[in-house]
């Protein structure tokens, strides 16, 4: 579908107030910790202070003896015999024989107040036998490294590798040796990135109640209530349909709230207290120690380039640790590594490695930022050495619609070329740079995702419409879904209410992840609206005594499709709805599917930095995000995604990192030392929304949430080299690291 096939829209592309705006500026929106229940108890979790230790004995007698303490649970209270991912989730929820990382839960307590629960948790006595530990990915796969878990490797891992390597992959195309031979310049370097946390401001919170009859209720901050339901049911041995999960408003997630950490514990404690509701709210240090950051990575990249900028071959070998469980996103990282380039000869090798760290979770384009840091940094180094313009080189090698992607499939409609063109044209590229200032560019990619989607919509008696979606609104999706529904129905935006509903109200929905809410729930809402329109046309046809096919829907009303259909004045949605009771009953629409037609999104970032050569501190002077949105349904929230992604990438590049001491204890589990960017660290973040409509979506939507975190990591490294002439291949490029590099250069 070409751009000009899209008609002018009345609502799509406008910037109305978000439907939940008033709730969120007045403080009445209810997040995870904001709900209490009659008879409620508070829970607190006992956590391992050791990176790796055998749990010899847990003695909760002192805690249980306290007045007001109602229950203690340990792994002994969980069902046995789980396998695969269910076992991994259970083991991470509550340690079994061994604590596998600093912060790993070993027991939980319920009491009549929060203070009492915390006091009781401190009185639970746990005897540990400390075991050797490892937290670095390269050390974890080296000979002699402590084994985190025997037998965790899957069939992909070749013989002879360390047992901590639990997954191995390789793929490629062409002949890479021939490709490197063809190049005028071949460069190869190792790059490292540290784990970064999603850093959502709302800590995990969950209110759960579970009876002896196996029926349970949960109020929880999550990106996906059905994922919570399935995972909790698996871990606790419950029937999924007996567990009803209501998502609260969510205070940020970025992938980190697509899985469970402590959420089964309120249920387990509730069951042990005769079904009393139990609330657990994590502290910030629990969030940082025991919920999933992203993986840390060690990456070897080799690229060959001709003098004219043509990339002839590329090789990427990525090693990632995602904590004490399988699941580092090494596959996604490899798929994204060369996704922006048409390179005939490629080789990818990946290792998923266990280490004594918390179980990693998804974080905005999981794997892609690390891959971009390695590949886009090295491409920049090649451009510098060959005297080539980095944007021209990216344009020269850019993938286009229909090209075979580096990871196999053919690209559908993509907008990398349009994105690069818009980047080159932006005035930021003409801004003058002073001493110790530099400019860096980089490109990023994310596939985007669809997933199981179920949406219902119903017309009210007055002709307004309600839409029930299963994807929590994490950044304005109520607004975008309402816009698309209203556009389709031909009614005002204000006449649509979008509700995020509990698990009992719809079929299974995947979480709000993979940049899918506006794409998948939006597409399903449009389909549901079209179904309702069909029904309303039938009602009008019946009243007029003509064939339903002779009725069309225009601007929120049924009307005869042409002069031959008959002469009737348009019948509005309100008129049709007003008599629904006598014309056949409720009017609604429903759609469920795994929507096809996901549109991938490329972005290009340009950053100007200034480095203080005496202290190694980097200041962001100017920042530009250019990204293909397909079509921006609500442009303000698309810009918001671009800006937020860039800010997170800037934090990861400059200051955010997991710091472990030699005992394997996390040294910075507070926002004081886990340094996310603050308002005074950043300039305004300029955005350009490129619109190459996605033909797979009725309004051309591509997911926009994730790509934006990817380019900042290499773009900043590239800008720093431009400013002060040193190349830093390890993140974060913190002042001590950069100053050391500057001193080494002399």
């Amino acid at each position, binding site marked *: 579908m070409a751009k000009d096939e899209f008609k002018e829209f009345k609502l799509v592309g406008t910037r109305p107030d978000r439907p939940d705006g008033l709730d969120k500026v007045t403080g009445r929106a209810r997040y995870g910790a904001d709900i209490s229940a009659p008879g409620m108890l508070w829970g607190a979790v006992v956590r391992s202070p050791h990176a790796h230790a055998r749990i010899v004995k847990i003695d909760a007698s002192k805690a249980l003896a306290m007045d007001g303490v109602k229950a203690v649970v340990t792994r002994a209270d969980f069902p046995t015999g789980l396998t695969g991912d269910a076992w991994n989730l259970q083991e991470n929820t509550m340690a079994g024989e061994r604590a596998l990382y600093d912060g790993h839960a070993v027991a939980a307590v319920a009491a009549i107040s929060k203070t009492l629960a*915390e006091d009781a948790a*401190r009185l639970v006595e746990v005897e540990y036998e400390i075991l050797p530990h490892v937290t670095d990915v390269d050390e974890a796969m080296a000979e002699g490294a402590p084994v985190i878990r025997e037998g965790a490797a899957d069939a992909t891992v070749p013989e002879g590798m360390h047992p901590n390597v639990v997954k191995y992959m390789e793929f490629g195309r062409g002949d890479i040796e021939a490709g490197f031979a063809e190049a005028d310049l071949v460069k190869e370097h190792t790059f490292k990135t540290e784990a970064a946390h999603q850093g959502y401001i709302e800590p995990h919170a969950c209110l759960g109640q579970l009876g002896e009859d196996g029926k349970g209720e949960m109020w929880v901050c999550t990106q996906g209530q059905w994922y919570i339901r399935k995972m909790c049911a698996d871990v606790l041995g419950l029937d999924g349909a007996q567990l009803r999960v209501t998502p609260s408003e969510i205070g940020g997630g970025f992938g980190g709230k697509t899985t469970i950490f402590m959420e089964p514990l309120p249920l387990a404690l509730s069951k042990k207290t005769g079904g009393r509701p139990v609330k657990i709210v994590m*502290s910030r*240090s629990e969030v940082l120690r025991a919920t999933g950051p992203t993986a840390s990575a060690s990456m070897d990249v080799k690229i060959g380039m001709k003098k004219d900028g043509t990339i002839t071959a590329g090789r990427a070998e990525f090693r990632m640790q995602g904590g004490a469980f399988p699941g580092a996103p090494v596959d996604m990282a490899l798929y994204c590594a060369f996704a922006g380039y048409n390179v005939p000869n490629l080789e990818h090798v990946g290792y998923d490695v266990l280490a004594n760290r918390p179980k990693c979770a998804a974080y905005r384009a999981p794997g892609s930022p690390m891959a971009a840091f390695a590949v886009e940094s090295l491409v920049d180094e090649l451009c510098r050495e060959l005297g080539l313009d980095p944007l021209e080189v990216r344009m020269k090698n850019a993938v286009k619609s229909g090209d075979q992607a580096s990871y196999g499939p053919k690209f559908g409609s993509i907008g990398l070329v349009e994105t690069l063109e818009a980047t080159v044209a932006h005035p930021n590229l003409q801004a003058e740079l002073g001493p110790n200032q530099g400019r860096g560019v980089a490109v990023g990619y994310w596939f985007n995702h669809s997933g199981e989607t179920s949406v219902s919509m119903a017309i009210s008696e007055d002709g307004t419409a309600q839409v029930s979606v299963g994807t929590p609104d994490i950044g304005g999706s109520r607004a975008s879904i309402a816009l698309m529904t209203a556009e389709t129905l031909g009614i005002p935006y204000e006449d649509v209410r979008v509700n995020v509903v509990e698990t009992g109200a719809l079929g299974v929905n995947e979480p709000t992840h993979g940049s899918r809410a506006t794409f998948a729930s939006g597409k399903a809402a449009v389909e549901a609206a079209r179904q309702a329109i069909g029904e309303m046309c039938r009602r009008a046809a019946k009243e007029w005594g003509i064939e339903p096919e002779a009725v069309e829907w225009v601007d929120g009303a049924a009307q005869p499709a042409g002069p031959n259909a008959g002469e009737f004045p348009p019948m509005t949605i309100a008129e049709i709805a007003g008599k629904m009771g006598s014309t056949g009953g409720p009017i609604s629409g429903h759609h469920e599917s795994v929507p096809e037609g996901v549109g991938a999104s490329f972005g290009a970032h340009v950053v100007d930095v200034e480095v203080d050569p*005496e*202290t*190694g*501190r980097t200041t962001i002077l100017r920042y530009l995000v250019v990204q293909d949105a397909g079509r921006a349904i609500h442009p303000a929230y698309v810009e918001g995604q671009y800006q937020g992604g860039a800010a997170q990438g800037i934090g990861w590049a*400059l*200051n955010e990192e997991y*710091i472990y001491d030699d005992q394997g204890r996390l*040294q*910075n589990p507070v*926002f*004081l*030392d886990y*340094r996310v*960017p*603050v308002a*005074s*660290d950043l300039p305004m973040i300029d955005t350009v929304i490129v619109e190459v409509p996605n033909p797979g979506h009725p309004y051309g939507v591509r997911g926009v949430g994730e790509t934006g975190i990817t380019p900042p990591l290499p773009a900043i490294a590239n800008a720093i080299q431009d400013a002060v002439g040193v190349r830093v291949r390890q993140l974060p490029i*913190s*002042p*001590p690291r950069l*100053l*050391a590099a500057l*001193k080494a250069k002399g």
Partner: protein
Amino acid sequence: MQYHTPASFEEAAALAAGAKGTTRFLAGGTDVLVQLRAGMVIPDDLIDLKRIPGVSDITRTDDGGWRIGVAVSGAQLGAHAELVADWPGVVEGMELVGSTQVQGRATLTGNLCNGSPAADSVPGLVAACASVEITGPDSSRTVAVQDVPQGPGKTCLKPGEVISALILPPRGKNAGDAYLRFIPRTEMDIAVVGCAVSLRLDGDTIKEARVSLGAVAPTVLLVDAASEAITGTTLDDAALDALAAAASAACNPIDDKRGTVAFRTEVAGVLAKRAAKIAYTRAKGA
């Protein structure tokens, strides 16, 4: 935990002296509450000093110096134009502690008593020759600020003793002070290195100087060699280089999550130069 609200420092000292377990004094609370919430220090007795008359006052002393109450917040200091004119370095050190919100609560005395080698307000006080009045269960005494910290988390206060006021000397003429710190972000971090310089001029020549460093040793340092490096000079390039060298030489830092030994040592010299230039400019303008 028992929460007390004594009406005088004598009462506070008596409460503390009579307490059996862990005791903490509450002024701004920005350290005490964090430790309480984290379960690091749960005092048996918490003695809130804010109900004692005068603790929120900033008053000019008879000799032209300043007496600052123990509950005076950073925000109050920053809003006091005369104090800022006299001791801009002391005030800017305090104003760097935490956020706007923390500024509404945090106090100079609390920052000092927390005993952190990285406390932002302490180098400025040391450079300024500030002192504290201490009320004990039996007697009172006055101690120079540089003698209060005894190591990370440790102070010279004996059981039952409480700081009852902070005293800044008269500023005098042709003098200026400044404090700079290095942090990775622009706000909200603990100092990786801090440096305060206070000096007095005779014409263009530095007549006297005090240089103090934070976060580069177990306690805030008063670096005599650094002071000597610029005293008698016009803060020319040679003096600045000597100052930087002396500051770096005085460092005895650690590698930790906030910085490395090499980084702290290097940047101490850089900040000393920069702070000295600001103090010099202020002294010239005074």
